[in-house]
């Protein structure tokens, strides 16, 4: 299990590939990998987005991401988890978050991946501020699904 908080742009596919190759114990043991990547769009609620700043409460963020990953591991039969979350200033098309789950079977991989992304959105202390041509604005939290 690995939790990464990164200040610079990252390539999620390269990170997933690198993490997976670096876990020789995984080879042959997992039949399913589910990956979710959230990426900064260049528009939101009708406005052009020029950049976004992602503020966070570093040690608390890490603790809660770890806890969500541990909960997923306890709840589903999964082999491994990788979570990468960006912070700092992002440009459109920059990945914001990447969640990857390795499991023997696909249901567990999908369910745990979705749980992770849903939980980290509501529990990890991150705040987004967008820069649009109309100025800076804090992004409002998502309505309950």
């Amino acid at each position, binding site marked *: 299990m690995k939790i990464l908080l990164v200040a610079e742009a990252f390539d999620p596919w390269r990170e997933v590939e690198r993490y997976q190759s670096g876990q020789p114990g995984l080879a042959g043991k997992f039949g399913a990998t589910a990956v*979710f*990547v*959230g*990426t900064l*769009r260049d528009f*939101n609620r009708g406005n052009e987005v020029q950049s976004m700043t*992602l*503020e*966070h*409460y570093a*040690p*608390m*963020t890490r*603790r*809660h991401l770890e806890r969500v990953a541990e909960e997923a591991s306890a709840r589903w039969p999964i082999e491994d988890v990788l979570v990468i*979350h960006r912070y700092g200033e992002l440009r459109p098309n920059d990945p*914001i*978050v990447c969640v990857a789950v390795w499991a023997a079977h696909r249901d567990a991989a999908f369910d745990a991946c979705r749980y992770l*992304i*849903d939980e*980290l*959105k*509501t*529990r*990890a*202390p*991150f*705040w*987004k*501020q967008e820069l649009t041509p109309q100025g800076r604005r*804090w*992004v*409002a*939290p*998502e309505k309950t699904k």
Partner: protein
Amino acid sequence: MSITVRFFASIREKLGKEQDIIESKGITCAADVWNRSARIPLPGNTLVAVNMEYARPDQPVRDGDEVAFFPPVTGGAR
């Protein structure tokens, strides 16, 4: 004999400060920390964390604790 106070995002901007260190004397709960440091009423949707665990405003705090106040979180992806 102190408590570290942290403010984030729109609350940090509104108060114009991100960190405060206050005397623990006379402080019994997280709301007391807010009142001493922020000096405005606690906004209704503010989240509170004591030592990096989510807490209610009436959660007891003690000397050496870190108490944080922040708006609803917006991490992850839409």
